[in-house]
């Protein structure tokens, strides 16, 4: 049986499949469905320092092979998270990753600092790429300087390994990835969602209460795959790839493009067993193709 484990340097995963932030709740919700220890890891919903109300509904709109969301990071905040959610999760034998948010660099640092006092987190995923909180969908990950500054600041505030989650809404993903690397991020994850609009022709109103939202799902897969390919060839730190992964084949394509691990997002909604099924499918594929260790295929695209 193929060895699915992957080593990100700062973190060993038993397999490359991580459930993506915002699509897996706080993890607890999936516990009745399957053993979370099957996962390479999972990222919890984005956390601000305090609780957050989120955006006005409607918050979801379906588009061809895609989903636009504008949840706006509704959440309980770090204190409640560490008090109520972390204890039951801390004993899991899978990589537990916190997705951290902030209104400004200060808040990012405070969230990182606060979480670092607790045991049980394998890494922080720095969410500088959510299109649903600032005016017009802007986010720090759209600029090299803001990326560099935020990463640097969080790097100094916490000793936990840092994965910086990048935005696809940029002209040049490579320069942003380099900025994150230079500022000390141990990995990058890409992509977050694409800024999008859906319109209800009958009412002539946006389908979402927040007007704009972020597009995820199979529709964006070819765009995400391209960015993972571009970034992974130019930076030395590992890339965690995501965007429209719905099957083992999708996940393997991201690894061939250059991802050392993958995250699965929207697929969890359509099939709550998506993650374990993808893991199983990768194992079968590796066995059928005589792949002994799955990390052999990372970045092997023949161009």
């Amino acid at each position, binding site marked *: 049986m193929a060895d699915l484990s992957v080593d990100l340097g700062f973190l060993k995963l038993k397999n490359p499949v991580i459930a993506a932030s915002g699509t897996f709740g706080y993890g607890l919700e999936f516990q009745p469905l399957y053993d979370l220890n099957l996962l390479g890891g999972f990222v919890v919903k984005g956390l601000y320092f305090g609780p957050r109300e989120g955006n006005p509904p409607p918050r979801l709109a379906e588009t061809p092979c895609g*989903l636009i969301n504008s949840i706006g990071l509704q959440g309980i905040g770090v204190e409640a998270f560490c008090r109520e959610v972390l204890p039951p999760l801390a004993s899991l034998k899978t990589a537990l990753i916190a997705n951290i948010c902030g209104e400004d660099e200060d808040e990012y640092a405070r969230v990182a600092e606060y979480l670092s006092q607790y045991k049980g987190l394998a890494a922080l995923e720095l969410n500088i790429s959510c299109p649903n909180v600032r005016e017009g969908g802007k986010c720090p990950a759209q600029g090299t300087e803001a990326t560099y500054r935020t990463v640097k600041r969080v790097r100094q505030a916490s000793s936990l390994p840092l994965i910086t989650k990048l935005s696809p809404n940029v002209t040049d993903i490579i320069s942003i990835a380099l900025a994150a690397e230079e500022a000390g991020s141990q990995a990058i994850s890409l992509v977050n969602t694409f800024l999008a609009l859906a319109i209800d022709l009958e009412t002539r109103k946006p389908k979402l209460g927040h007007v704009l939202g972020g597009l995820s799902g199979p529709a964006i897969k070819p765009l995400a795959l391209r960015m993972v390919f571009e970034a992974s060839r130019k930076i030395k730190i590992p890339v965690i790839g995501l965007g429209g992964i719905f099957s083992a084949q999708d996940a393997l394509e991201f690894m061939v493009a250059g991802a050392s691990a993958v995250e699965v997002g929207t697929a969890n909604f359509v099939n709550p067993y998506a993650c374990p099924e993808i893991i199983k499918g990768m194992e079968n594929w590796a066995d059928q193709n005589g792949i002994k260790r799955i990390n052999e295929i990372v970045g092997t695209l023949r161009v």
Partner: protein
Amino acid sequence: MLLDRKARITKTENWGSYFLISLATPDIARQSQPGQFLMIKVSSSLQPLLRRPLSIHNRSGQEIEIFFQVTGEGTRLLGQKSPGDLLDILGPCGHGFSLKPEFKGKEIFCIGGGRGLAPVYFLARELQTGGARPIIFYGGQTLSDLPLKSRLEEAGWTTNFSTDDGSFGFRGLVTQLVEKELKGRKPAFLFGCGPEAMMARLAEICQAARLPAEFSLESNMGCGLGVCWGCARKIRKDGKTGYLRICQDGPVFPAEEIIWDRD
């Protein structure tokens, strides 16, 4: 406990844009409560992407039924299924109507507007099983919007019909019919499911009549599992308002907790 099942379609019925489908799925049937719903995969391809939420319309033995109206691509595809086909379903989801022991012997108003009748049938059956006396109200724009008319009549419940155009039953809105009936009857509770405007008006009527009520709300759903927070709506609970998940904290809410969407 949420179950993930491939349920075989045993029967389909169809009236215009309305469909009634029976599914063999013993363990989901066993657990179902009125007001709970299923998340149904309508396509074997990636389009449409998401499952569709549909109420449990009835349970009979090993089977459950769904009743829906075609309103877009997902329900259109669902309407094309035939007996023998397998449907990928997840359920039962959410929290249903509160069936209280004190309803016993009492009249309970059950209002369904259009496709909103879906959960009302199961509700009425369970109320009856619990010894309560369901009084059904079934409203639509016109006679063809009342495809379950005879089904309700056969069940033997007191049923009041309304159509906007008067083609069958009371001429006017179902809310007007309820108001009228309330002059003569004093039910112990009111349950409602249907268009937002209908339910909002019913909530006003109930408040004026000091009649406790619950309504089943709709919202666009991503997961139906409580993980995406996409279905959230403003709810007033314990004096505080905030966004709660329709799929998990509902879909049924007490009238006084609901902040209606007047749009």
